[in-house]
């Protein structure tokens, strides 16, 4: 009894060919994101029903439950606005805001991290202290504070969310820079007389940034959730502009009981998207880790 079980403990005993199998889940997630992003980009051309302007839906039915064959496949909300259309326009907001927040975060955090990791010393300590300061305040509380101070616009939201991503990215890029700085190509560049700035921006940055791509994908999903949480608390982007979070918020206070689709349609979409980003990030990390090992 114990022998086969013990044998199973050894991961090295795996046959290599099983790795070749198609990763259905990954494809499913990729396809979902592709469809979603495509729909978000082409939204104005899709001939969707009204998503925002309640003045145009005064005659539309309200609270219509989802019915796939009808003109409102995912139903309508309290104002007669089309849920499918709101989901897609909501995707525009949710995705743009969180992806740009991560881009800002990567740029700022990446630069600071690489500088800290390469220059070390005083600069490192100053950046480290700033990182710790940002980390010491819980992300959601920081966001709540920023959201109440700033006027709720997509740009402000992206800026606020990027503050959540920055400290983590500083830490990781710093650590990766420390590792990369030992590598041959950096030593070679320095030996060839490259200045500090050149080494940082030409040699280190591209490599380090590439190594944090999986982490960025996970951050995108985390920030989608953060944005939704703020909208859910009523301090994120406000209706009529749809976001998935404020759509879920519309179902609260007794409405969810009578019209569950108000909550579960956006919640399911939110879940699938977050899941997909997480999975993509994870699979990418695995693949790259392996490459690292084989190098």
């Amino acid at each position, binding site marked *: 009894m114990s022998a086969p079980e013990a044998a199973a403990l050894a991961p090295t005993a795996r046959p290599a060919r099983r790795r070749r*199998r198609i990763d259905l889940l990954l494809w499913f997630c990729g396809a979902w994101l592709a469809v979603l992003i495509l729909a978000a980009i082409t939204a104005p051309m899709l001939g969707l029903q009204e998503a925002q302007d309640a*003045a145009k839906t*005064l005659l539309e039915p309200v609270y219509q439950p989802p019915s796939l064959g009808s003109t409102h496949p995912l139903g309508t909300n309290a104002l007669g606005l089309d849920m499918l259309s709101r989901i897609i326009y909501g995707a525009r907001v949710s995705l743009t805001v969180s992806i740009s927040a991560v881009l800002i975060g990567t740029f700022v955090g990446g630069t600071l991290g690489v500088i800290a990791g390469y220059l070390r010393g005083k600069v490192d300590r100053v950046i480290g202290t700033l990182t710790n300061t940002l980390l010491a305040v819980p992300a959601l509380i920081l966001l709540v504070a920023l959201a109440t101070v700033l006027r709720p616009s997509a740009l402000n939201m992206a800026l606020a969310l990027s503050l959540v991503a920055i400290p983590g990215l500083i830490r990781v890029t710093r650590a990766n820079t420390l590792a990369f700085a030992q590598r041959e190509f950096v030593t070679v560049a320095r030996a060839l007389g490259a200045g500090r700035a050149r080494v940082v921006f030409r040699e280190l940055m591209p490599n380090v940034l590439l190594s944090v791509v999986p982490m960025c994908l996970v951050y995108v999903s985390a920030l989608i959730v953060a944005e939704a949480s703020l909208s859910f608390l009523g301090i994120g982007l406000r209706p009529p502009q749809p976001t998935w979070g404020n759509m879920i918020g519309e179902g609260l206070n007794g*409405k969810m009981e*009578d019209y569950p689709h108000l909550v579960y349609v956006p919640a399911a979409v939110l879940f699938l998207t977050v*899941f997909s980003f997480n999975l993509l990030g994870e699979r990418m990390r695995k693949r790259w880790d392996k490459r690292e090992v084989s190098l």
Partner: protein
Amino acid sequence: MRKIRRLPIGVTATVAALVMMGCSNTSAPTSSKADPLKVTNGSFGITEASGNPVSGGSLTFGYGGGIASFDPVSQQYSGTSGGDEARAVYGTLTEYDTKAGKYAPSMADSISANDDFTEWTVVLRDGVEFTDGTPYDADAVLFNFDRMAKSGAGFSGLWTSVVKKAVAKDAKTVVITLKQKWADFPYLLSQAPGMIASPKAVKDEGESYQREPVGAGPFMLDKWTPGQNLVLKANPDYWDGKPYLDSLTFQTITTGDQALKDALQAGGIQGSLIGTPTIVKDYIQPSSGYSGYVRMTNTGSMLLINNGTPSRPDTPGKDINVREAIASAINPDVINQRAFDGNAFPGTGIFSAESQWANDKPTFTYDAEAAKKHLADAKGFDGKIELIYPSAQAEAALTIEAQLEAVGFKVDAKPVQSITDLINAVLIKRDYDLAMYGWPVPDEPGELYTSYLERFGRKDNQLGYYNETIAKALSDFAAADDTAEKAAQMATIQAQWAETVPAVPYNTTAQMVVWNKNVHDIEVSSRLTLDFSKAWISK
């Protein structure tokens, strides 16, 4: 086959849970659109308890508010903000008998007025003591009146504008002289000004008094975690006998009426205060299995129009044509459908259909063509107008915006982050064009008079609107003791209102207190405050 195993197990599990959540709640189908809800003011679901009251047990009442401070001179308590708690500790000199529609003495033995209602005599009961053993006498009452007048908060503004002086005639008689005729003056004594604190405790404790109150009411403070819960225990020496309940707990639940309903059902609380139309509707059905009290309020939801305040002298609403256009553009039925799922009580009159002051004077009617015409008559107006609204009422706001734009306005709708912001813009800075605001005012004459006096009966108010006829009708309303006379004054106000359009009511709201069937004899008074002194729980 092997590939199938890669199916997203996590995905299916979670989606299944979400769908279950959806389905599990569809078990109670609604017929909301078929039958508009009818609410009659008063108690509902009250059944005669079999047997006599029994002592013992504790009751937990949960609601969205909570008491902020136990110092009555700094507070304007109501059922939605600490009124029940303060009343349990202090009692009130008078109370409003909702069944008889009259003010009656409570902690006081009697209250009477001279012929023109300008002088009121309050006689106190013999032998009543605060829980610290000091006497509840005329000196104590005057001490509290004096602090009230000087506090600069709570009811002090109203008090000093109405009361000329208060003196003690003897150890248990206080005579109050008013600056005006007011037949419903006892209303003020049924509120925070009628909550008498022990002068000794106030002097001894200083700043910490607000946390450690001493009154002579049916309950005493046991334990308090502000913003969370408050535990009171029965006062064994209460003048009307020790309360049946051993303890009374108030739980603050800020998660909304649905959470309150869930908690009531789950048994965590035995009573609650509800305002959400859909949920009010659920409880009022005889089959709900709950008892309680419900009242319709007037002018519950208002579209305030700035008629020209010092901070916005050139606001569009200064022009009567613009105000008329707004009034004709609003269709309250559509707002009801979209914002309240057809469960609210649309209407453009000041008074709800259920109100005892309802009259046949004209109200506003939806007429898009008339609105367009009025708008065309507004010379020099480009149609641009700003609307501020609390972000929690986005649906109603967006519907109003849509209706205004449909007749040619260009609306800049701005959600405000919090009620504080709304109060700041409308009431303090008076810097707005249009605002969605709540003015829920019950039929009860004392509260009605004081509320409307503040809002449009005096010069220099938040609307920037003043009308001699309305002001006079309001003060005649206060001076009259006769209901028919009072109703005539309210009809005058409605007629003037329709003519001059100071603001547009679009919905009235219901307020409800609800409790379990086995809870008995909770009495409701002014501002929806509850009296638990005789409450008991049957086994």
